[in-house]
């Protein structure tokens, strides 16, 4: 699986309250989408295209357990590549089915708007403008399979353990 998309650059320590503000936790899944990054990048949500890619800095997704990764998936982003990802946020990427990869050095390899090819097969990230290619570590296949399958709920539903969300 290779994700190709236009990149948006975010800095270090992007926290969950910026991705999905606290007040939105009581909103519906649909309503939550409109609030993404409203405090730090107002209007950004209106300018993105399906398949766009976030290039993040160190410690992306620090903070709460809220379903912020689900909102990034729902707004149509292709994937996230960050210098490092908060462990809880990474779990949420896996379990809500949002493709995410850690790659040290990624921030310096991109200028906002560059188009990236991100391979979730051999874990390389290529900048189409500069030709620079970065290799990063593989995601364990069990986690990658869950990410690609839309998270854990489809499997739990198929096993008869939980009902589909009402």
């Amino acid at each position, binding site marked *: 699986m290779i994700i190709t998309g236009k990149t948006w650059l975010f800095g270090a*320590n992007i*926290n969950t*309250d*910026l991705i999905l*503000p*606290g*007040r939105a*936790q*009581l*909103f*519906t*899944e649909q309503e*939550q989408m409109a609030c993404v990054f*409203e*405090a*730090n990048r107002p209007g950004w949500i209106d300018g993105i295209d399906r398949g766009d890619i976030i290039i993040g800095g*160190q*410690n992306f997704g*620090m*903070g*709460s*357990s*809220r*379903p912020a*990764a689900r909102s990034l998936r729902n707004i149509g982003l292709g994937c996230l590549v960050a210098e*490092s*990802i*908060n*462990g*809880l946020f990474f*779990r*949420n990427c896996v*379990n*809500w089915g949002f493709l995410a990869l*850690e790659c040290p050095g990624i921030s310096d390899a991109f200028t906002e708007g560059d188009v990236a090819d991100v391979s979730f097969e051999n874990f390389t990230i290529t900048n189409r403008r500069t030709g620079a290619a970065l290799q990063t570590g593989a995601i*364990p296949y*069990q*986690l990658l399979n869950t990410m690609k399958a839309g*998270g*854990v*709920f489809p499997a*739990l*539903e198929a*096993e*008869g*353990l*939980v*009902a*589909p*969300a*009402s």
Partner: protein
Amino acid sequence: MGMTAIEKILARNSGRDSVKPGDLVMVEVGTAVMYDNNFIPAIWHEVLKVKDAERIVVVFDHRAPAKDIVSAEAHKTGRGFVKKFGIKRFHDVGATQGICHVLVADHGYALPGTVLVCGDSHTCSAGVFNCAARGTGAPDMFYAITKGETWFRVGETVRYELEGQMQPNVSMKDVFLYLADTYGDHATMNVEYGGSALPSLSINARRTMSTMSAELSAEFATFEPDPVMLDYVRERNPGVAFEEQYPDGDAVYVDTRIIDLGRIEPLVALPDTVLNNSRPVGAVAGTKIDQAFIGSCANGTLDDLAAAAEVLAGRQVSPDVRMIITPGSQTIYRDGLKLGYIETLMDAGAVVTNATCGACGGGHLGILAAGETCITASTRNFKGRMGSSEARVFMASPATVAASAIRGTITDPREILAERGAA
């Protein structure tokens, strides 16, 4: 090769002889704590089967009592879940209400050497009990309660040796702010706390540190076992067997750092993050505040109420400040009443609310308007965390927050206490 404490806990709960950084392990879940956010309509999936109802705890804390209709619906759903599966350890609005991590400590739900998961990010709090405890997402919780297991990536571990003795009016919150300021984030890594200062630190003080470790982005925060902790757990679990895990003598750490508690001064984190962002209280003294808050899973303990009461005794909160104090559990609230702390705080003009997450998460009971400034002893000071994204939130110890409430500006608590000493 030796293992760190967390590596040993993860190994024994995944049926392995050893684990090392880079491994992915499936572990048995000893305790799964569900809380009200898991039941809100945008998250909830009706659960058809659970693996073991005896291992589940249910707590309403983020918006308890319900602050609006959506919260009320979540609580109603949660009560239905509890009834359907006959869950005994249930903390509804009432006598044993409180913040889930505080209740886990109060009731001894976290057994040393076991795995505890909860869908709230500050679950690392229970690492104080030598438990592999961490916050997970909501989907993880549905997986854990239905299948009885979960996965963890094993990270490298940083060891912190806590040494020396804290000065008067310095608290573990200041120690944490020092650590976060000096070392920044620990994403993908574990932290392990031990050292010669351990016996002098109360469980409450240690829990401030383990809870705040979420703010370091630590994977797991684990305290080395000691008699104080083991007695605390045994008192609450008579006759229950467990096997605490000590780090091996030849455990491999990515770094070992010595923290001399005696050198720590009161610190204040500037708005938006605690990472590499604190100043000595004197550097920001005089900054005008509108609200002062003490509470949360990190600072809603009896020790924190005592620290605030010591500063506020016989004094008045500035008329320009709203001082809000939210105990971590109703049990702590009652204990604070019996010890006279609550009366002292109320006489000073503070509002003491019921136990809940409250203002810490910006949910209710103390939301900030645009342009307002708050100083808080709670878990987070992210932009927009406690209300408007145009409010400023400084983070400090309960003593510093209480001192600031008196003057209406950020204040070194040692000045207030020195005035009293001189009077």
